[in-house]
């Protein structure tokens, strides 16, 4: 744990007080052994530890699904919501309390199917939050039904002859929406890069959308295996303003492309290719306005100011008593 001994005030916790990774953990996760959600949880906890995020000022929000159990495993504030609605809940929290750190965990069914309308609009609102799409390309919690991101031909309990439709591409979809400001992709099996991308997502002031390819060994034991084993199945997107892989990572993942996160056209091209899997920051534009900034949140209204405002409104519709 790095502590800030020079200027102790700059960190809420320093020295012996510093929070450890364990401090950010609550209950023992109940995900299957080998489930990619474990890796995502570990990356977020590690990130919180690195930044020493005050747990009481941090809120993890989710919908419903295996992945949406996430808030129960974080020793922060949490909101395990209803299926598909994590984003509007998170928006309400952020709007009421812009100073809170907001993380959203959502599954591919949760975000791209039942919550798709909210997803599109959340991109447009561009509120400052870090959104982790746990994309296992399947419905896990309800036991193996096709999801909008399931590859065509995948045999599931609702598609015995193989799924009939081409998958929806969450990266392309996100990059197509007005006000998109941050899009990245990570895979659960490269923890250092996952961690690094979460860090950059957090520090982007806006709606940071991170699609994470997440293994589901329970229902799709074969889908990810080949990709996990073969480092060339991943193409790292590197840039001085984006992902800068450590030498160790760079040695293993030699398939790389230099990509400027400001280049949305190239980002869209990259997004459209799924093999090899692009990993890194596809797009980032810090200049996109944030919805929460449209309202003056500093204005603290007291009973007194409210009373004055109310009286002023009432004046306009008042009929005075006879003198």
């Amino acid at each position, binding site marked *: 744990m790095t502590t800030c001994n020079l200027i102790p005030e700059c960190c809420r916790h320093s020295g012996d007080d510093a929070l450890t990774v364990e401090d950010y953990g*609550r209950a023992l996760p109940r995900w299957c052994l080998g489930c990619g959600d474990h890796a995502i949880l570990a990356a977020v906890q590690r990130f919180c530890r690195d930044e020493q995020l005050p747990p009481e*000022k941090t809120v993890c929000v989710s919908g419903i699904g295996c992945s949406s159990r996430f808030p129960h495993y974080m*020793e922060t*504030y949490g909101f*395990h919501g209803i299926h598909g609605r994590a984003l*509007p809940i998170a928006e309400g929290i952020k709007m009421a309390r812009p100073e809170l750190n907001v993380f959203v965990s959502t599954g591919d069914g949760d975000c791209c199917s039942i919550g798709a309308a909210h997803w599109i609009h959340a991109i447009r609102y561009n509120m400052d939050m870090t959104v982790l799409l746990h994309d296992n390309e399947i419905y896990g919690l309800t036991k193996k039904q096709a999801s909008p991101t399931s590859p065509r031909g995948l045999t599931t309990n609702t598609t015995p002859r193989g799924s009939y439709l081409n998958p929806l591409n969450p990266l392309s979809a996100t990059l197509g929406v007005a006000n998109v400001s941050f899009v990245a992709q990570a895979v659960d099996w490269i923890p250092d890069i996952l961690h690094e991308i979460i860090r950059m997502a957090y520090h982007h002031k806006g709606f940071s959308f991170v699609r994470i390819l997440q293994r589901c060994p329970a229902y799709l034991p074969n889908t990810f295996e080949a990709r996990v084993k073969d480092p060339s199945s991943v193409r790292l997107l590197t840039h001085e303003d984006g992902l800068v892989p450590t030498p160790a990572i760079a040695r293993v993942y030699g398939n790389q492309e230099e990509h400027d996160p400001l280049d949305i056209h190239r980002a869209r091209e990259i997004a459209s290719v799924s093999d090899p899997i692009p990993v890194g920051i596809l797009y980032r534009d810090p200049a996109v306005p944030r919805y929460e900034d449209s309202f003056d949140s500093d204005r603290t209204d007291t*009973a007194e100011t*409210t009373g004055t405002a109310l009286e002023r409104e009432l004046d306009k519709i008042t009929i005075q008593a006879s003198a």
Partner: protein
Amino acid sequence: MKTIDLPKSSTALREGNVRNLTEHVVEIVSDSGEGAQKCGQSFGTIAARMGYGVWTVEIIPAEIQPPARSVAGASGNRIRFASSPVTNGGDDADLVIALNEQVLLGRVGEMKPGCTILLENKWKDDPDSSVAGAYQRTVDDLDQAGFKVREVPMEEECLKHVSNARRGKNMFVLGLLCGIYEFDTQLAREQIESIFAKKSRAVIDANVGLLEAGFAWARENFDLRIRIPATRPDQPLVVANGNTAIALGIVASGMKTCAMYPITPATSASHYLSEIFEKVGGFVHQAEDEIAACCFAIGASYAGSCAVTITSGPGYSLKQEAIGLAVMAEIPLVVVNVQRGGPSTGQPTKVEQGDLLTTVFGSHGDAPKIVIAAASIEDCFYSIITARKIAETFNMVVVVLTDASLATAQTLFPRPRYDESWHAPPIDQSPVPKGALRYDWDPETGLARRFIPGQPNGMHAVTGLAHDRRSRVAYDPRINQEGLQNRSKKLVTLQKTLKTPPVFGDGEGDLLVVGWGSTRGAIEEAVRRVRSEGEKVSALHLRFIQPMPPGIGDILRRFERVLIVENNWSDRADGAGIDEDNRRYSALALLLRARYLVDADCWSEVMGQAIKPATIENVIREKLS
């Protein structure tokens, strides 16, 4: 009430032609866009400023731009004004002004026998013979039916003052009305100044000119005056419709977040609120749909800033799952449902009280929530303040029911005096004692303290899953039972604090008429009328529907018979094929019969408009006979 007899020819005003009355119901109808609504609202405002009791009702076509001269396109306003305060729109119209005969046709059912009709006569000479023919036929038919049709050359008179008579004719009409009712023309001029405040002097002058022309024309050509004494109020009053009252109530309650998706007839509340919030702080979030709106409000409430979401029927249905989440996680939430005609898209602009049962029982599983029905426009204001307070005290969902009639009708009520205790407290950020449990349900009350993000030691994850006192997912069925019990107990706790509603009339008698929501004014007026003839009839009106205040059962049992009157569906007891085994009772009747085991009867209608006092009066008489 007697009808007015307008002589056909201009004669000097004789004393006998002055009618001294205590109230009148006036309607102004036109094609949409001709300004009948503005004229009616202005007339209502002038009446209010003169000291009359006033109740205005909007006449709204279903479409934005219905075809001209169509029956369904009637747009306008109905104004009931009286010497004493009025609590509802009253009965059929005494006097109607129409800018063409077609818009009148759909209104005939709302006119008193012998009602006076002032009709624009330009259609008589319309170059299109089918128009001229339709006009003449309608005038003849109305005459035949006993209405007193008075043809007025409105266009012709207006053209003496302006080049385009279509714009401004409504102010000529306002002048006519001021002439007939001997209104204060200075107030009328001021009203025009205020409506056109943002327009040029020339526009204001032209409209004042038309007003004066209308006034003079009425004076010269009608030897009829209707005199209704006005009394200046002894306390300041405000004029508002129910949606305005709700918006003001939201501000007064200290809530800063209103999440909504546009839907008639709820939207205008958020229009007005958006404007006020610009000045006060706070914001209206127009979400992508009602589900998002409800979830957004829940998110804000969870984060410590109690929020409101406002909607109408279809949107209310969409919110159900999220409402259940707030119930389960015990997050305060205020939901306003401005009811309209249902089911489905139903009748968007029309009045109905069809959502009571879905509000009480809505959302799957046992989802206890508080239901308050505003009984008047004034009550719309106070109900929101009460709702916010209860929501935060009990960490519960509070639904405030109003309907299209309260939403769009305007009336007067005593000006509220701001009370600091209405205001939401600042967000609690004090540390939670170590080890404290989020759902540490009090065994007596079922209440548990909410922990708000930012409070040290309060970290927990709320969930819609069954959970234990730490908010951890519960796998033990006994924990589920415990949660349900405590959430239910909160209703009991609140119920014990409620006061028994007062009985209107004597505490016992032959018949008790029970209602809820917007029908209060009409029911009590009907009951007053039959009581004045010595009938032993009283009324009871419920504001809290869930929980029901104590003492209701005792009141019901003190009457020979109980009749519930509502604006929703019920089978008539004598309907074809209806018997006790299959009769569907109206919503409140179902609730009262089930809870109090009283053989209460019901009468209801779904005519898309407020129930008239005379209708209720007839129903009461029938029940008594």
